């Protein structure tokens, strides 16, 4: 290492002399920092309203959208499941003899205030055939005389939510994508 001598000190002395206008330069730097702080605070408040606040690659945006849709679908399915009858009694149908058979519909709808059954046998009228709530509270029943043969039907909850019978097979997709249930009534049986 080169030994330090008087020349080094002379150079250092020249270098260390304060620059003219140093104080003003420092004040300008502090003012810029304060301005930046103020801008940052304003930006953070406006961020939620800024249409350009987020920028991302299209691929990342598509992936985020898919994740959001998946979360939405999962949440929606969970919500629908909570609205749907959870434990429908199997084959809720009783049979009587003759050309017509009286069928007992049984449906569980927690939280519902009105449940009806609508099908080809009542012209799909959502109010024509109401079910009666039984003592347990969540279960609704109705006894309906039907002609022997194949019928399609669905339950209507609170006059607006159509849902198929979870204890019966599904019919092919109906108009507007709605699903109905299928019921085959015979002289001495119901499928």
């Amino acid at each position, binding site marked *: 290492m080169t030994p330090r001598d008087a020349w080094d000190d002379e150079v250092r002395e*020249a*270098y260390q*002399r304060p*620059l*003219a*206008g*140093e104080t003003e*330069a*420092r004040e300008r730097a*502090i003012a810029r920092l304060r301005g930046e702080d103020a801008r940052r605070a304003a930006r953070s408040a406006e961020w939620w309203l800024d249409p350009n606040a987020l920028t991302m690659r299209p691929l990342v945006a598509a992936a985020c959208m898919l994740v959001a849709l998946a979360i939405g679908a999962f949440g929606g399915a969970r919500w629908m499941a909570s609205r749907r009858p959870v434990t429908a009694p199997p084959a809720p149908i009783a049979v009587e003899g003759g050309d017509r058979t009286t069928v007992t519909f049984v449906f569980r709808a927690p939280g519902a205030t009105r449940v009806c059954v609508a099908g080809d046998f009542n012209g799909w009228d959502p109010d024509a055939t109401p079910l009666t709530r039984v003592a347990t509270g969540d279960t609704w029943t109705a006894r309906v005389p039907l002609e022997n043969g194949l019928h399609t039907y669905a339950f209507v909850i609170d006059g607006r939510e159509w849902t198929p019978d979870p204890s019966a097979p599904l019919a092919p997709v109906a108009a507007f994508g709605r699903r109905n249930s299928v019921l085959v009534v015979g002289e001495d049986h119901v499928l």
Partner: protein
Amino acid sequence: MTDAELVVRAVAGDAGAFEELVTRHHPACLRFAAHLLGDRIEAEDVVQETLLRAHRSLARYQERHQFRAWLFRILVNRCRTASGRAHARRLRTATELEPSSAVVGDTADTFELRTRLTRAIEELDPLHREAFLLKLGEGLEYDEIARITGASVPALKMRVKRARDHVRARWEELES
């Protein structure tokens, strides 16, 4: 209050603490950038950018006992970028950048000394000039300069020696 204590306060949201750090270190930063770049206006801009970056990065800064070295590391990087810009400008205009570190307000003696120093180091390439100023100007130890510049200590010693020999010869020539 030490730099480390001020850093802790600044991270906690005390704006005054960071301003105190600026007050302490701004003169050295400006002096270094002005001599390194040979342009006082550019130097002031670079120092402001350095302080802004340091302020933004303060929460992520771990070496709280070496604030000056950390600040100088940012400053050296900003100066290298600015030096590249100045070089590009020089190529475009094909003119020499006149050193403008002497400004109104210097005494005649200071002006003469500063002009001589500026002239003596102007032919050094940026890496040699950087090492020379950090060692002889700021008086830093080699291991500290190594952390700032990213160069090894032996390489820095070589750069300082070559730069010192060159500057000394030029200094004496200007003196006479």
